[in-house]
């Protein structure tokens, strides 16, 4: 059942409205909108916050900041490598730059610049990758970042956050402004259900148990909007007598090791869910952790070493094995591996 301590929306499952993830959440908002809101609030709270745009101000939602703080908005043109390095210079001076583009270009194209000038330098550059995942839809594989978590997770000094909804995207953006370190923030293009509220606790590095059945047999660790799909799967399975725990792992680095290990221990099997390549993403991170701390059977729901393609978000999620039915299947498989 839903964990009341998380202060999630009451109407999480009830309202109508098509969901990209197959659910029917009440309020459908792209996570990038949460960035747009959050970065304006961060700008109001701290004059050092600046936003850089590589010719995508509207679709990255950087335009909200541009409107309110034109003197702190820096347009660099279609030049992501320049954007990262200009930001590193601004950060060296004392600014807190948020760099905005699509995740395939930033941190895709400018990965080395981020590595050298933001991460090795340990500069508080906030890399905001929009249009991550298959939800980018009709634009096709070139614009659907499915490797960005792996790219950024392997980088020392970098914090990696993948918010589950727009509200959490807002909170994550605000929190990122305060770390004093480089941060990667991952956002999606299409509308997805809002699950959290301003009362939902949010702390970088602290995963959240959104759902816990009595006597759960499988721990489902999900990130991004697929947390909602995982909740739908959990609800359905509970009706069939299969208990689970669903955890929102918004921070992929640093991973909330204590929570993940203790739930793996408690349940005995694990499913990971992400809109990213299985290699190097959340699943990889959890597998690395559990292999050392608490070897546990794991099933991975994620993209299986393939590029995306054009299509509507919902049909892509189904085609690539990221639907609610796939999560249910993975949970059953995880149980079957233990003879349950």
């Amino acid at each position, binding site marked *: 059942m839903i964990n009341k301590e998380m202060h999630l929306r009451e109407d999480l499952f009830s309202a109508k409205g098509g969901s990209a993830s197959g659910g029917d959440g009440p309020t459908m908002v792209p996570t990038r909108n949460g960035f747009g809101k959050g970065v304006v609030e961060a700008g109001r709270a701290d004059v050092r916050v600046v936003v850089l745009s590589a010719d995508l101000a509207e679709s990255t939602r950087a335009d909200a900041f541009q409107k309110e703080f034109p003197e702190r908005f820096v347009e660099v043109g279609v030049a992501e490598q320049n954007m990262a390095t200009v*930001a*590193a210079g*601004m950060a*060296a001076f004392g600014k807190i730059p948020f760099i905005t583009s699509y995740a395939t270009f930033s941190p895709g194209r400018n990965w080395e610049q981020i590595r*050298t000038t933001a991460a090795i330098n340990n500069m508080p550059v906030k890399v905001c990758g929009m249009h991550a995942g298959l939800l980018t839809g009709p634009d096709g594989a070139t614009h659907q970042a499915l490797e960005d978590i792996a790219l950024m997770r392997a980088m020392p000094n970098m914090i990696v956050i993948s918010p589950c909804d727009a509200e959490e995207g807002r909170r994550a953006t605000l929190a990122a402004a305060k770390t004093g370190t480089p941060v990667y923030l991952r956002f999606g293009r299409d509308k997805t259900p809002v699950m959290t509220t301003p009362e939902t606790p949010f702390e970088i590095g602290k995963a959240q148990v959104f759902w816990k059945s009595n006597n759960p047999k499988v721990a489902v660790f999900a990130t991004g909007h697929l947390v909602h799909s995982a909740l739908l799967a959990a609800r359905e399975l509970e009706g069939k007598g299969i208990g689970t725990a669903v955890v929102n792992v918004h921070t992929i680095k640093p991973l909330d090791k204590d929570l993940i290990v203790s739930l793996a221990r408690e349940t005995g099997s694990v499913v990971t869910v992400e809109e990213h390549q299985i290699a190097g993403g959340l699943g990889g991170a959890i597998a690395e952790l559990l292999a050392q701390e608490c070897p546990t059977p794991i099933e991975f729901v994620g993209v299986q070493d393939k590029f995306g393609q054009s299509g509507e978000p919902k049909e892509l999620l189904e085609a690539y094995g990221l639907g609610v039915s796939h999560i249910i299947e993975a949970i059953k498989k995880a149980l079957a591996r233990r003879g349950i």
Partner: protein
Amino acid sequence: MTITDEEVRQIALHANDIRQTIVRMLAAAGSGHTAGPLGMSDIFAALYFHVLKHDPKNPSWPERDRLFLSNGHIAPVLYASMAHSGYFPVEECLTLRKFGSRLQGHPERHMLPGLESTSGPLGSGISQAAGYAYAARMDGRDFRVYVATSDGEHDEGNSWEGAMFASAKKLGNLTQVIDRNFIQIDGNTEDVMPLEPFGDKYRAFGWHVIDIDGHDIRQFIGACEEAKTVTDKPTLIHARTTPGKGIKSIENDYLWHGKPPSKAEEVVFLKELELAREELLK
């Protein structure tokens, strides 16, 4: 501001010290780049002993001018200039590239006070310096930002992105010094990937370009002064330099771009530099 012959001679002597230290540190390290550091010694001596507003005893002095080194592989000339001007003991230069040293093979900002950036991967220094200059101007600060670059790294698109940005934002507080030595690892720049007409490219990009002989200390200092008077565009000091300058047998030889002197060559090179020093003292 005029500069006297005696001041120029003193800077030339500092440049000679720097060259000798470069040869010693590279021979001790057993790896590293020789031609670029020797070629930029006159300019770095002028920067550290005349041009830059800085305080070696207080490397984080907020009012200091900032110098970004974009082509991090010429770190020996940066380290030697810093050491000779008082940032740290000259003998520490001999730890270059050794385990545990603050003098990393390519400069790392967090390792050594006085470094403004981490560099080595080429082509990102102009943008970093431009970002810094842009932020400083936002806050009404009046120090200058300098960035030393190489010609080879202008093969990188990021260099030109930075050049466009600095010009678009009219960064009059930014001065770039290009080490135009015409060599890179695989050969001469005009064979590997032609850059000419280099100065005209920058003029077309909206920069104020000053062409100088990179071993004429008086010309270089004059160009730095001129740059300060141009407030609506960034300045490029287009310095024609001789790679390996000061060691006749290796000058202009691209094979010396990326290798150090052997112990035997060190002795010969230092002797040649000592003779040059005696000439300066005459």
